[in-house]
């Protein structure tokens, strides 16, 4: 029966989360272990974030595909909001931005929900881009034209287009998944998110333990080549060990997917760091007090999701 795998995956993740929560609480209660209290606090905050993430995902899965697509749509909307808030725009961009937020983003997620890969794969990168260029031109302000339109487009691609490939995983037909086919797709999505989170942690751990050579010190002071290689290798191992949870994959294919996901996630973190550095903020959350900084949480997923989606399509032979 197929659902044994779902139960196994959920049980495993719950056990792991409980274990790390226990470790985090132990470290918090025993500050005399010589560990940096700030690092322990960050660790515990991270764990709390995972609990929230798991709860929200579980609720969305339970409600079904449409609810999950809507959930990701809302996350995209909020992330784009943070992105554009942080990016200086001019008054001439206002009308274009209105359509970007209230027409292109919802329409794109509608197409994802309807499983129209043939349209949604070009809708934002081609049609929205053309629209933004033309609308800003029509507004009559040509100052730094390319720079401004590029900012809007970068926001759309990263926050909306790329992230939407995560819920799009739910629509890929999987051979031999049986009657409870959708649960296989949900496992696939969960597999991706698990790998991304794991890669983030491993990057931190490996950088801390062996980190010597910074990738780009001016952009990120804690991302090292050792962290990248270590995280890619450990994520590949975890993916291979969990291959049974991700339906279409053989162990070696799962390992390859883990390798690519870790690398893309790393690239996403670097990219967002560069943008934040340029704007002179530490994270997207500090811009507005009280907001968690959604973009800080999803930057790795945004970069990893489209690649993972296409690897899955290749493996299932469902497209390409």
């Amino acid at each position, binding site marked *: 029966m197929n659902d044994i795998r779902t139960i196994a995956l959920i049980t495993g993740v719950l056990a792991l989360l409980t274990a790390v929560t226990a470790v985090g609480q132990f470290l918090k209660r025993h500050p005399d272990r010589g560990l940096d209290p700030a690092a322990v606090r960050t660790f515990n905050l991270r764990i709390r974030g995972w609990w929230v993430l798991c709860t929200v995902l579980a609720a969305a899965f339970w409600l079904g595909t449409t609810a999950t697509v809507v959930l990701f749509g809302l996350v995209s909307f909020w992330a784009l909001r*943070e992105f554009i808030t942080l990016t200086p*725009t001019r*008054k001439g961009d*206002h009308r274009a931005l209105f359509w970007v*937020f209230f027409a292109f983003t919802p329409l794109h997620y509608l197409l994802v929900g309807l499983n129209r890969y043939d349209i949604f794969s070009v809708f934002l990168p081609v049609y929205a881009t053309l629209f933004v260029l033309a609308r800003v031109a029509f507004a009559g302000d040509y100052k730094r034209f390319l720079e401004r339109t590029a900012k809007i487009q970068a926001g759309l691609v990263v926050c909306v287009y790329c992230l939407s490939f995560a819920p799009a995983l739910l629509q890929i037909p999987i051979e031999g998944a049986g009657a409870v086919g959708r649960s296989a797709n949900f496992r696939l999505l969960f597999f991706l998110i698990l790998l991304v989170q794991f890669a983030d942690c491993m990057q931190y751990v490996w950088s801390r333990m062996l980190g010597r050579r910074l990738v780009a010190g001016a952009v990120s002071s804690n991302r090292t080549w050792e962290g990248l290689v270590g995280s890619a290798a450990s994520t590949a191992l975890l993916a291979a060990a969990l291959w049974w949870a991700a339906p279409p994959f053989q162990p070696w294919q799962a390992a390859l997917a883990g390798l690519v996901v870790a690398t893309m996630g790393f690239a996403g973190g670097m990219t967002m760091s560069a943008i934040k550095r340029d704007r002179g903020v530490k994270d997207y959350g500090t811009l*507005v007090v009280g907001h968690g900084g959604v973009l800080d949480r999803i930057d790795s997923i945004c970069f990893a999701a489209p690649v993972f989606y296409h690897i899955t399509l290749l493996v299932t032979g469902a497209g390409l």
Partner: protein
Amino acid sequence: MLSPADLQESVVPAPSSGPSLAPKPGRSAFCRAAGLSLAALARLLAGSSVRWIASQPDTCQRIYFANHTSHLDALIIWASLPQTVREVTRPVAAKDYWSRGIVRRWLAQEVFDAILIDRTAIKVHQSPVDLMLREAGTSHSLIVFPEGSRSVSGEIDEFKSGLYYLAKKRPDIELIPVHIDNLNRVLPRGEFLPVPLLSCISFGPPLWLERGEAKLDFLARARRAVMSLKE
């Protein structure tokens, strides 16, 4: 806020001479519900986070003075206040904008309970400062914009003198500086469709007119108090 720079000092109205201080009896449950949902919607749309810096929300009589960047300003400040405070707080707004059309007039009169100032008919003998104080009575707080109109440059313009006369005539009222950040990008001047960016409303510590403080000194100090909330 809409007072002219050449406003003359006029008779100080005794606080007790104000009209009835209880919430207006005419406000129906429907208008209250409309106010609540509008406040929620405005805060959602403008993604506003609210900060009280060395200051606390209170129902005591206050004048909130803020930089003016967008038509949404008064609504967002009003929506940022806790509900008990909101009940006693009345925005001061321009009559020419807020009495145009049924919806706006209804919003201004019934939902926000706004004090509408006629910008075209400001004269010495019907000073808006007196009108505001009369309408505020001894229990209502006011939301005013001392720049007079929405700033075009994005910088905070010089304050008009109305705030000084308000402070002089009612030295018992706390003046609370409020800084509105990023709302001009949500709804810029001349636009009617909002873009849902994140904004931030900061409330600062109260200030009063010092004994013998000159008008220009006071207005400059008040303006600095708003700017210092920007960080």
